[in-house]
């Protein structure tokens, strides 16, 4: 029997990134084939190639034994390929039925719509799926789970034999997940092939037949889901070839605690998170995408509201209701998205360094002291080895690594001694990464308390004196840093799914 889908030797490059390297994948009728890998492993990219959203730079796509090209989403639909994106792609202001048949509305003459047939057709699909959703309800009035069902109905409406689901349960609770799985099993029995992308190990075991693992855009291997231990899949995902320099862990036994967080809570995003960071310590935060690490950082920094929890800085409880309060308490947050939240790209180095401390450089009537600004900028350029022609250079012209240093300078100038780095080396090339690491280690040695959020396990292992691991808004464990802790251990904590139990109670 021929496979529904066979992808071989798929290549895809984006500017600066080799996203897919000889990637391969196959899908049979009536199976659920899980596609796994760490963040950025290329799973979603590969599926976007299959569904016509990206065009591959090389390789072959076969559907039911025929070599095909998929020039666009419409072509994918014709081939019977439906994709349900990680971020739901629905039009909130339209009704359920209007969403399902967007682009294929039943028409009468002169472009008039046949609304009655539209609703009837949608109702027929829901009947077939055995779910009850009113086709005339506007999508924004539905729960996320129901919206997910609408996406599935949409995919089924053009008789998809190949259904791609990219993290479909990310926003679902246990009961909703069960409902989704029931539908997947029904589809399976009707011969539909399902590609299932997920990070959740327990789900993979429950729903999938085979598991294919990708790493760094390449194919690693395919195993049977039923008789493969989770450990094997994890080690396939993280690989063993990544070298990790041993981290030197200072003795912080007597060091005072710089920041303590107790019982931090916000809805499902942050569930009772407590930890402490000492002066001179680097605390790493590991976890998969959506684990709630950035949410914790933003809540501590006052960028998002929190429902509960105390923030204690140098032994004193502080009220943090806005980033302004956090900065006043000496907490600096270096966003993962420097270009949006960290820098004014069109301004020069001098202006950016002083951005949060301008009050210090102005006289009584608000005129800025340019000489002092220049001196300060030059001091940090020298101290952090920022490579720039001058302090008047526009920041957008500098490399990612040097931009990151300017953000660091900004917070140092503001006297922040608790620094939260969110993905500090995202978009920074390998050489500059090492320099940022040394800089962070230097800051810790000076007595700053540092929190590092990173999705790259080697980075967490390389930097952290201790490693906090999160999963689904919960702190699932704090591991010691250094060679004693393996990537496998972190991954296990990052995929502990306790949510099910407590949601059932709540």
């Amino acid at each position, binding site marked *: 029997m021929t496979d529904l889908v066979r992808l071989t030797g798929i290549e895809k490059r984006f500017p600066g990134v080799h996203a897919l390297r000889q990637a391969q994948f196959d899908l049979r009728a009536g199976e659920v084939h899980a596609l796994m890998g760490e963040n950025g492993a290329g799973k979603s990219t590969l599926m976007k190639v299959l569904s016509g959203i990206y065009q591959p730079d090389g390789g072959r796509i076969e559907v039911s034994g025929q070599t095909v090209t998929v020039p666009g989403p419409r072509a994918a639909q014709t081939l019977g390929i439906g994709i349900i994106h990680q971020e739901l*792609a*629905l*039009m909130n202001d339209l009704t359920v039925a209007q969403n399902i048949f*967007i682009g294929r509305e039943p*028409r009468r003459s002169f472009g008039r*719509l046949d*609304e009655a047939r539209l609703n009837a057709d949608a109702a027929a699909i829901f009947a077939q799926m055995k779910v009850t959703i009113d086709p*005339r309800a506007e999508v924004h009035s539905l729960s996320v789970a129901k919206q997910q069902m609408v996406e599935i109905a*949409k995919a089924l409406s053009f008789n998809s034999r190949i259904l791609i689901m990219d993290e479909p349960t990310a926003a679902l609770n246990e009961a909703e997940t069960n409902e989704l799985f029931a539908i997947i099993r029904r589809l399976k029995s009707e011969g539909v092939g399902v590609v299932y992308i997920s990070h959740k190990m327990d789900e993979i075991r429950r729903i999938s037949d085979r598991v294919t693992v990708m790493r760094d855009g390449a194919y690693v291997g395919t195993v049977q889901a039923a008789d493969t231990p989770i450990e094997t899949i994890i080690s396939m995902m993280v690989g063993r070839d990544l070298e990790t320099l041993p981290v030197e862990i200072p003795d912080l036994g007597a060091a005072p605690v710089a920041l303590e967080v107790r019982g931090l809570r916000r809805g499902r995003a942050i569930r009772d998170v407590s930890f402490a960071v000492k002066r001179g310590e680097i605390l790493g935060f590991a976890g998969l995408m959506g684990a709630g690490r950035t949410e914790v950082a933003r809540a501590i920094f006052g960028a998002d509201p929190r429902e509960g929890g105390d923030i204690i800085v140098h032994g004193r409880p502080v009220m943090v209701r806005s980033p302004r309060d956090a900065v006043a308490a000496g907490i600096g947050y270096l966003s993962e998205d420097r270009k949006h939240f960290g820098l004014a790209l069109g301004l020069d180095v001098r202006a950016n360094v002083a951005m949060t401390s301008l009050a210090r450089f102005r006289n009584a009537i608000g005129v800025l002291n340019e000489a002092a600004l220049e001196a300060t900028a030059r001091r940090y350029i020298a101290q952090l080895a920022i490579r720039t022609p001058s302090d008047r250079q526009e920041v957008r012209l500098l490399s990612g690594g040097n931009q990151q240093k300017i953000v660091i300078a900004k917070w140092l100038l503001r006297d922040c001694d608790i620094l939260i780095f969110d993905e500090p080396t995202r978009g920074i090339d390998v050489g500059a990464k090492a320099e940022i690491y040394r800089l962070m280690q230097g800051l810790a040695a000076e007595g700053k308390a540092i929190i590092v959020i990173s999705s790259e396990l080697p980075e967490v292992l390389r930097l952290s004196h201790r490693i906090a691991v999160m999963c689904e808004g919960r702190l699932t464990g704090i591991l010691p840093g250094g060679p004693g802790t393996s990537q496998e251990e972190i991954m296990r904590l990052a995929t502990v799914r306790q949510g099910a139990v407590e949601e059932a109670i709540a």
Partner: protein
Amino acid sequence: MTTLPAAAPARKATSGAQQKLLAFASLIVLLIFFSVASPNFLQTSNILAILQATSVNGVLAIAATLVIITGGIDLSVGTLMTFCAVMAGVILTNAGMPLPLGVIGAIAIGVICGTISGVLIAKMKIPPFIATLGMMLILKGLSLVISGTKPIYFNDTPGFSEISTGSLIGQVFPSVPVPNGVLILFVLALVIGYVLNRTVLGRYCFALGSNEEAVRLSGVNTDAWKIAIYALAGGICGIAGLIIASRLNSAQPALGLGYELDAIAAVVIGGTSLAGGRGSILGTMIGALIMAVLLNGLRIMSVAQEWQTVVTGGIIIAAVYADMLRRRRAAS
């Protein structure tokens, strides 16, 4: 409980519907207030004057509604109207062509200019605000250049002024001589209201404004539809050009700037979201009427014209703020 689709509105009394209701209630309150304040207000002649005054802004607001529902904006509606009027003058007065050609020509020019805006926005990815700002200035300039900055009169084309000021209804019911300009406005509102709610083009207006990327990923040729929507809006501006030229019996090339803001104001007061995805022609009509009633009523009460502008500005802010409040409450 009926199973007709008409049963739906009760359940989805959404922010847009509420805003429409609020706007309608405001209109009624204004009408009551002015009729109590001034005995002249409810005279048939005055009501007809209000409707007449609504016709141009109303038609332009219908064009603006289409574009705003897609999440875009069209700043060129006013000067495009003038440009179409000038081109009608060129065709009828300067070239001496027959009346139907002038009408078709003006609308066609509108469609062409709308298509150009659409291509700038959909294909060249210029933000709608900038693209239509550019078009606004280009068309204003062209109107002045082509006309030699002088008005073009339609004295040689008998029947042209009938387009707006004649009254087909008056011929049948002499007691209510509703001018044709008003008739055109209401017929257009019905037609575009139908297009918006019952045709594919209308569906894509809402869909584009709601989530353009999702529409594109569904395999819809979003660029082509967007261009079509701007083209339709352009054609409607052509109709507005005919109405205003007919009423003035001349194409006034210096006119047009500022009309786009009145049109957008009517759309916003009528509950159409500038964020796109929701809105209605009925709301826009109510919005345009509110503006006209207010101006007329204040004038009858001898309030200085400068103050009328101030009040209109206040109403826009109040209308949008009321909408924001409700939406925030609905969200929480």
